């Protein structure tokens, strides 16, 4: 894969110290590239600058803004802009990889400030947002500078074509599939069990859909058990559960990566009832790689990831009756479960970093032409000179 060692600059829009899909993706990608012999520098906002890994450069403290049904910790403003420009001019990069450059963040600032080989990855899948009409004319010339665009899923690509009228190559998020491939079956999670992993307090993760489906499921499978793993305070959720069924639920808290592999291998069904706002579903990819039989809502991202039902069962999103039906069906049919999890396991392999990073790298190669390097854009260079005088 390695033809020559590159100096790659990656920009992460969200705060490095808050957990999130984009951050994980960037961390794994950066570490994979470093292991492959490249020189990688990641620019990211950070709350606590002392805890950063060696390859991360802090861009300052982030601010919280509501975005896409969640709170995003991002950073922008003149000080951040100055930092971004400094990072670019000192980095001497062969290529910049900007993540989520269409939201107000340091990724967008970097896109503005730089000229040369740039790749952008779009993660979000959102419904058409009015605000884009207002800032579209400002955004377009910036996004246009990217030599190649990557969308993490069909849903993310549609969001992009919808909002900004530009196309993208689809490259899925990566996972370390081998970490999940050899999970041991643990008897405490076996039997008629359902697994759920995620920040269950967030409504869009859809735990309530599963909670509503349980009375029906319990009628057909009285020994059903639901294991909920993930960070958060479970008292509120537990209160919302019918007292007679409360003991069917067990909250495990945040579990380690090894436990996750065992968890996926042990539970009869892994359920992802997310109601939306999901653009890829990394946890589903991990569940597939771990050999779980997956049941997921039919939101576009999951529908796509599960090959329209080929690698896992789908139910109508937010419809707990349908969810109950699908679950009962599968619990009764061990053969079908076996088949789905086998198909899913090989599907999970296609998200392994060795495959995904190779695809990303070939996009890098196509963006780098000749020995042209990333430099500050001419339209911001004079502005930069003016500001750096100010700094002194």
């Amino acid at each position, binding site marked *: 894969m390695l033809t020559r060692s590159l100096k790659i600059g990656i920009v992460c829009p969200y705060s490095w110290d808050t957990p999130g899909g984009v951050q994980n993706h960037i961390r794994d990608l950066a570490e994979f590239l470093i292991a492959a012999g490249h020189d990688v520098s990641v620019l990211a906002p950070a709350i606590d600058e002392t805890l950063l890994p060696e390859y991360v450069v802090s861009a300052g403290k982030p601010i919280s803004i509501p975005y896409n049904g969640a709170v995003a910790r991002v950073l922008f403003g003149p000080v951040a802009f100055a930092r971004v420009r400094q990072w670019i001019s000192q980095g001497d990069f062969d290529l910049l990889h900007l993540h989520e450059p269409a939201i107000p963040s340091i990724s967008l600032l970097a896109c503005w400030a730089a000229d040369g080989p740039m790749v952008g990855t779009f993660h979000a899948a959102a419904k058409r947002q009015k605000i884009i009409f207002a800032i579209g004319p400002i955004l377009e010339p910036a996004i246009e*500078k990217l030599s190649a665009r990557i969308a993490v899923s069909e849903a993310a690509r549609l969001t992009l074509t919808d909002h900004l009228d530009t196309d*993208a190559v689809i490259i899925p998020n990566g996972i370390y599939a081998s970490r999940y491939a050899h999970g041991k079956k643990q008897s405490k999670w076996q039997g008629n069990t359902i697994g759920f992993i995620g920040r269950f307090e967030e409504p869009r993760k859809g735990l309530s859909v599963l909670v509503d489906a349980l009375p029906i499921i319990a009628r057909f499978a009285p020994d059903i058990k639901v294991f909920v793993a993930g960070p958060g305070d479970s008292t509120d959720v537990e209160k919302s559960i019918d007292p007679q069924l409360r003991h069917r639920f067990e909250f495990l808290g945040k579990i380690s990566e090894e436990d996750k592999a065992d968890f996926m291998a042990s539970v009869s069904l892994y359920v992802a009832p997310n109601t939306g706002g999901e653009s890829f579903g990394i946890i589903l990819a991990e569940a597939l790689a771990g050999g779980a039989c997956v049941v997921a809502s039919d939101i576009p991202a999951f529908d796509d990831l599960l090959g329209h039902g080929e690698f896992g069962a789908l139910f109508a999103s937010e419809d707990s009756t349908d969810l109950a039906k699908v679950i009962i069906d599968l619990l009764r049919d061990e053969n079908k479960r076996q088949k789905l999890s086998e198909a899913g396991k090989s599907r999970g392999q296609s998200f392994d970093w060795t495959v995904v990073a190779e695809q990303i790298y070939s996009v890098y190669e196509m963006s780098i032409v000749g020995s042209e390097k990333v430099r500050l854009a001419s339209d911001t260079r004079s502005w930069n000179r003016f500001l750096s005088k100010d700094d002194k």
Partner: protein
Amino acid sequence: MLNWFAATFILLIALWYLSFTATRLDRLHHRVETSWANLDVLLQKRAAVALEIAHSDIADPASSMLLTGAAYQARDADIKSRSQAESGLSGALGLLLEDSQHLATAADNALLTELSALTDKIRVAIAIHTDAVSRTQMVRAKFVVKAFRLAGTAPLPVTYEFESDVL
């Protein structure tokens, strides 16, 4: 006095906008050129691999002849016939791959994997190229660009027909 200030201000903004759009357009033209250069290299490589396949045991004599012809055509085509030649090569390769998958030996398999890796790359390169072209066309359709001839003498970029049929 105030009117003069306002007029100068508006004029300055207009000039800045013109220069900004010209830079933007220049950048887009550059993108079209580089993305085409990329695609061109990959297509040449594909023609070379196709020739190798034609000379290997994968291809029976008839498809070998077909493939050799198509590969040479794609290699030597000029701008006008390039699209047709590339489509022809895609078609010839497609025909061959359809029924050769299961009877290939290990050595031939290496060639086929190379071809499929190349095909994936070509698909990406095509997406990048068509996107660059359509963006450029969009900006060039703007009134300001036409009225002030900001594109200069650069020809309007076009996509090739072969880019739309999936390999």
